[in-house]
């Protein structure tokens, strides 16, 4: 429904919009127009160029990379409406938000909710400035979907914990500065024995080993902790509260993962445009292959409905406060659609869409193959589709297990 804004608010909105425009005008390096390093922070160790650094610092200084976070911790302190205006203006200018990564997407919102004042003051501002990279220490070799089975132990040594164990699927572990980690502080209770601990990745005893994926990339690591000393100040919440905090963080993760961002939906042609580049068109400029055209339209309609679902969920969670349990639906549906899109893309291109390296393929074609393959992980990580189905059936629909 139409938003009926007050005249006064409109005035302030337009002033804010002017401010944003002026800021972008003065600070956004023109050579970055149309580029993005949104994924660089998690998916590669590629260094920052000088203009990229300038832009990050400019955005960070205003807190606009984390626009709705409280200004007292370095966030933008903006209203949702203002954040939307900021987003619109950035898009108009061909600019991107350089403050990204797991700190922004998951850890920050969770720490704002559960962290102590001291922890927020210490960890949030560097996230807002894009200075610190966080990675996630959740999964273990025998704790994937059954996350609560995790065995990495943190033993109380008075002023510190001594951490031992192995994590896996640590996103960007080889490039991260810090890790938010689920550890076991009590073997007697599966869920209540888990605590939420922050670990420096350069602490003695931390070792990472990148995992090569089927896409050829190595965005994840195995992480080994051997007698790592972690100060007690790095415990978030209370001992044994890790499962509660950790699940909350997963809700933020799901909401973020659902957008299909990781599957190359950032810019680039639509499927219809892609098909027109690779396939014949008829005298009306439409795809001559009506069957393919029908399948593309089928996808695009379902994608449009997904975006509407996500928007509605955001509106409702705004109305009700907090992340809604629909996040499981979004995660499940968004990742499925992302994979479908990638499969359709390579099908449209035929063998031209299956190049691995070398001559005969454009950079976009080669990137498309890697994206297609990497995207297979999206229905596995962040709680697999099967786990989301369990969550929906049990928590949302009230379908219980065998008694």
């Amino acid at each position, binding site marked *: 429904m139409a938003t009926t804004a007050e005249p006064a608010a409109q005035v302030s909105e337009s002033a804010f919009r002017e401010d944003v425009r002026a800021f972008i005008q003065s600070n956004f390096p023109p050579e970055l127009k149309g580029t993005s390093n949104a994924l660089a922070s998690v998916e590669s160790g590629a260094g920052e160029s000088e203009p990229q650094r300038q832009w990050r610092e400019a955005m960070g200084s205003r807190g606009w990379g984390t626009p709705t976070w409280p200004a007292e911790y370095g966030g933008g302190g903006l209203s949702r409406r203002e954040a939307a205006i900021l987003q619109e203006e950035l898009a108009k200018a061909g600019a991107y938000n350089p403050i990204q990564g797991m700190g922004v997407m998951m850890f920050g919102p969770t720490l704002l909710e559960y962290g102590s004042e001291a922890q927020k003051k210490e960890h949030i501002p560097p996230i807002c400035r894009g200075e610190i990279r966080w990675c996630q220490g959740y999964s273990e070799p025998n704790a994937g979907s059954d996350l609560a089975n995790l065995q990495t132990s943190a033993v109380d040594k008075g002023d510190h914990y001594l951490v031992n164990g192995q994590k896996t699927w640590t996103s960007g572990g080889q490039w991260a500065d810090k890790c938010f980690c689920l550890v076991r502080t009590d073997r007697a209770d599966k869920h209540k024995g888990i605590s939420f601990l922050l670990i420096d990745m350069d602490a003695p005893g931390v070792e990472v080993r990148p995992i090569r994926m089927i896409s050829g990339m190595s965005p994840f690591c195995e992480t080994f902790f051997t007698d790592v000393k972690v100060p007690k100040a790095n415990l978030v919440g209370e001992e044994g509260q890790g499962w509660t905090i950790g699940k909350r963080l997963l809700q933020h993760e799901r909401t973020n993962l659902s957008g299909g961002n990781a599957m190359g939906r950032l810019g680039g042609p639509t499927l219809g445009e892609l098909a027109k580049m690779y396939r014949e068109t008829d005298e009306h400029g439409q795809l001559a292959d009506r069957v393919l055209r029908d399948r593309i*339209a089928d996808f695009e*309609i*379902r994608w449009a409905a997904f975006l509407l679902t996500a928007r*509605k969920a955001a509106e409702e969670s705004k109305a009700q406060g907090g992340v809604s349990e629909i996040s499981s639906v979004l995660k499940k549906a968004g990742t499925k659609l992302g994979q479908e899109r990638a499969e359709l893309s390579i099908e449209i291109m035929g063998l031209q869409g299956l190049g691995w390296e070398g001559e005969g393929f454009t950079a976009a074609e080669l990137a498309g193959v890697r994206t297609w393959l990497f995207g297979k992980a999206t229905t596995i990580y962040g709680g697999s589709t*099967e786990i989301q189905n369990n969550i*929906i059936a049990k928590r949302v629909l009230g379908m219980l297990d065998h008694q």
Partner: protein
Amino acid sequence: MAVLNDEQAMLRDMAREWAANESPFTAWRALRDAETGAGFDADAWQAMSGMGWAGIMVPEEHGGSDFGWMSAGLVVEELGKVLAASPIIGVTIAAWAIAQGDSDEAKARHLPALASGETIAALAVDEGPRHAPGKIGAKVENGKLTGSKGFVADAAEAGIFIVAATDGLWLVEKGEGVSVAGRVLADRRSHGEVVFDAAPATRLGDAAMAEQMLDRARILTACEMLGMAQHLFDTTLDYLKQRVQFNQVLATFQALQHRMADLFAEIASMRAAVEGGLEALDSRRRVPQAACIAKARANDVLNLMSREAIQLHGGIGMTDEYPVGDYLKRARVLENRWGSSAFLRDRFAGLAGY
């Protein structure tokens, strides 16, 4: 659920309550089994009209409430849940067409009667068994309309017809030059073949307006389908939670849990698409696209949901005594109306330029 304003929330609650109390499934079944051939219960329609539902798209100066499409859609969805038979979609769309149309006389003459429930309106567009607005043969010469229209809903009860002709949209009153032959479809509602033989016609608008009308009909039909799908989901979930096999309620079987999770996600998508259609109508933004999205999702999800509802209910769902079969039959009729998914995908791709 869309974020509603107070007026809309009240209207929806009223419709939900009325449907549950005054028009449960048994009301439809009584009508069907009476086999009078009537497409809806006249008293029920009078009651609905009395609550203002017939006049949601009628301007206030003509006796309506002009509450807007979201309001109309909420009511239609609630009626869809209980499979309530009514001419509300035809009446609502006709009211819009007349109100938007060229004829002040038609507005004065018909809008109050539509809003009060006195006059029933039917939409006469397609001439064959599938939606094909590009293939209209009905012609108007000297103010007289000639042509035949197939599978027109509520044709027998209609006092006025909104008719698509080669050159746009016309209004024809029942009477001179109009004959109706009933057709009984699997949904057992009222349908008819309508033959216009030089029937006096009043011009409402051009072909572009006819297209706009069809987008509205698509979205409102999708609302009925949303109600049906939601009901089928809810009733299936209830059944699974109650039916015991192998000493366990069926809801505890993981294979069924995951199927229900899939259906839940599909219905969330359908709801977002349908409500997105209503919002597009009220804000007049990208309506043709929104109509394709809403109706295509409604078609596909209701089709799936109706098949799964039968399967998950097992034998009892196959009995005529149980309601689910009636939803299945109604579903296929509505899937065909105003565009199959194949039609809508073609239209959507065309709008997107590929």
